[in-house]
């Protein structure tokens, strides 16, 4: 059936709506938040924070591409977000290394010296 083939081809070539990117970003953010809440290893917590930052970056770039008056500026903001995330990761891993050196563990449940 040529018409059905044509319809299928049109469906496959049709444009992705903005909402689908945002939903993928939201689910990725939720997975990252879940991991940051439940994992014990501090390094894995950092990975999950990076996942959340990436999810937000994805939403930002999707807005930049779809909203008519964004003018592509969000791409520049995304680069700044990447720079800040890299700075956060460098300082965070340095702190994890310092904690590991003094306590021999990176388990966030056992690092409770400042607990009231």
């Amino acid at each position: 059936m040529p018409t059905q083939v044509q319809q299928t081809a049109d469906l496959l070539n049709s444009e992705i709506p903005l909402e689908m990117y945002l939903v993928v970003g939201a689910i990725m953010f939720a997975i990252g938040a879940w991991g940051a809440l439940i994992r014990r290893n501090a390094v894995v917590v950092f990975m999950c924070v990076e996942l959340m930052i990436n999810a937000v970056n994805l939403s930002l770039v999707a807005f930049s591409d779809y909203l008519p008056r964004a003018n592509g500026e969000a791409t520049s903001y995304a680069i700044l977000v990447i720079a800040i995330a890299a700075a956060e990761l460098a300082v965070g891993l340095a702190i994890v290394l310092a904690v590991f050196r003094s306590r021999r563990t990176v388990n966030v449940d056992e690092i409770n010296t400042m607990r009231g």
Partner: protein
Amino acid sequence: MIIAFGFLAGMVLVSAFGVVVSRNVVHSALFMSGSFLGVAGFFVMLNAPALAAFQVLIYVGAVTVVILFGIMFTQKPQVRRFATIINRQFWAGLVVAVGIGAFVAVIVSVEDWGATKSGAGSTSVKALGRNLLGVGDAPPVFALLFEVASVLLLVAVVASIVISRRKVGAGEDSQVANEVER
């Protein structure tokens, strides 16, 4: 478009899930780089190829290597049981995360974004560079943001060196060294 989107979405979400549930920390790091690669593919689909290149260089390259170094310095051999890698908040955390995800997904779905169309922004690398430096038509605040980001990166590098430096006579390393000497 739909096929590429589905493939990338599956790659991103499955890899993100793998980061959370895998027992081996090195596997978590590799899953994380897979997820970042998927996001880079999304950036290509969203007409931001320069940003996709930055994503691959910085996240898939540098951040994954830094995390692997962190794992190499801090980890003991892998744990065998799933229960030992998660804390007691497994179900509470799942409820909170599903709540956040469902809430945000519903909000962005029902919101009326107006007439949106892909490819609305400028896609050239030249425009991106001018925009990032705040020259030409770009908002001048980007010049300030660029300078602030560069100072922030410098401060972060210096701070990470200062924090993670091995201090003489402090920490357990010196005790271990003393015991070895004895």
